[in-house]
């Protein structure tokens, strides 16, 4: 079971704040791993630092996924990194405004990010600058919308405004 505030957690956070100062904010208490919020201007440098730093060595990109925060009209990307050397996981979060959702690509750090970023583009419309082949991956190419955004709700099964009279209910 994860306990927050271990030595390694603190090492990661102190190294990052020492290097990037104001671009880092750690304000979330998480139940499974340290969560670090990064400003979008610094995201590439932070990821590269985490990958290259000899003490940290986050050599494995576990997963990367998009988020939509409609209340702030922002899109976000969540990176899960894993250091096999130290067996330590962290979660990096960043957010961009909806009107200009551009982020630097992580494919130059981890080639694994290639399809994950294509998927994120496909479903959320986040544009990864520098990506070698940024096009839709699971949906059809002709699609114009980004279906995982919250403005496309699925029908709620507990809706009360449905007319059930046709079904004898």
């Amino acid at each position: 079971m994860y306990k927050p505030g271990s030595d390694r957690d603190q090492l990661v956070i102190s190294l990052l704040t020492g290097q990037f100062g104001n671009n880092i904010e750690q304000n979330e208490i998480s139940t499974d791993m340290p969560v670090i919020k990064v400003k979008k201007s610094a995201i590439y440098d932070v990821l590269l630092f985490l990958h290259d730093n000899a003490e940290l060595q986050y050599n494995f990109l576990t997963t990367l996924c998009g988020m939509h925060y409609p209340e702030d009209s922002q899109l976000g990307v969540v990176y899960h990194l894993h250091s096999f050397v130290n067996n330590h996981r962290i979660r990096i979060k960043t957010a961009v405004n909806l009107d200009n959702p551009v982020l630097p690509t992580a494919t130059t750090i981890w080639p694994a990010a290639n399809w994950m970023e294509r998927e994120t583009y496909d479903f959320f419309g986040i544009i990864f600058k520098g990506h070698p082949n940024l096009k839709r991956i699971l949906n059809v190419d002709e699609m114009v919308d980004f279906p995982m955004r919250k403005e496309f709700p699925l029908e709620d099964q507990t809706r009360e405004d449905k007319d059930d009279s046709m079904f004898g209910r």
Partner: protein
Amino acid sequence: MAQELQTDYWKKDIINPEGPKEYNILNVGPTHPATHGVFQNVMLMDGEFIVSTEQTIGYIHRAFEKIAERRPFYQITPLTDRLNYCSAPLNNMGWHMTVEKLLGIETPKRVDYLRIIVMELARIADHLICNTVIGVDSGALTGFTYLFQDREFIYEIYEEICGSRLTTNMGRIGGFERNFSDKAWDKIHHFLKTYPKKLKEFESLLSRNRIFMDRTINVGPFSADRALAYGFTGPNLRACGVDYDVRVMDPYCSYDEFDFIVPIGQNGDTYDRFMVRQEEMWQSMSIIKQAIAKLEKLDDKETYFANDPRFVLPPKEKVYNNMEALIWHFKIVMGETEIPVGEVYHSIEAANGELGFYLVSDGGRTPSRLHFRRPCFIYYQAYPEMVTGNMLSDAVLTMSSMNVIAGELDA
């Protein structure tokens, strides 16, 4: 063998040594007997050799991540069935453990051991299909038809435990819906007794078979560095020589109490992937035996779910006879219970590698975001790099040895 041929061949165009090289475009898939699933590869071919390949995926995309945003937790379990449908119970248990992590439910030891039995059976069923299909693609159909009976035995065990076979929807948040019946135990013991003999026989058919070795050694090799960069996990990563196993690195479900070996390969080629899966089946057998021994040592023979009435469904007898139990059953199924705000990432060692669930809850009845880390989706992108320069027939073997499952690939 393939490597030598390739260097010779690339020096000159045999048909027209003076002129420019002529390439052909070959469509492998979307429905092709050699792909074992619905995905397309558009290959640029120089005779029998692959110059480049471009993948198209998403043919059976079913928008699970979107659907999950409108489903209470219980109704998401059937979605996870359809990710890697060759080992559905693993996905079910992984999802239930994710929810337990969010809700802070602690499962009793007996539930952990029962889960481990089911999860390892599912791992055997998955590896069994993958390995026998490697045999089929290299021309040996016997092992496939022979071992499929044992997959049938495993499915019968699922049937005794939860009532269904392929898409199992097994278990509940906090444990199981019912205790294992005597018949289920009989079938498990029968499987443990009969399977090693047949697995041994299957292994002796292929593992030192000259034809099979020639067809698989040095086919689709991949280095450990590239495998890590491409996010490989599971048997494919271990075949490259990296001993990463979520069961050991990040133990869940009491795996830390078990004694097992994490087999690794050397070259990351098709033969190594085959052998790693083969050894993992033996290890899974040993884990199941250890779990049964641990269960026998426990005094408690009845517990099969965690004692947390907020989220664990009350037993069926009570639901039919007791008003409060009926209300609770309804509230839990409809997702009307209190769900904490928070986010968790939980990963398990599924048959293909690290299957992760990133669950974000805003306190509503459904997740506000659920992301599946599907191992297939992540490692299949390295396929062009693995097969370029190889022969087409080797590319078929490489794909089947990677165990790409279309359901998991496309979510």
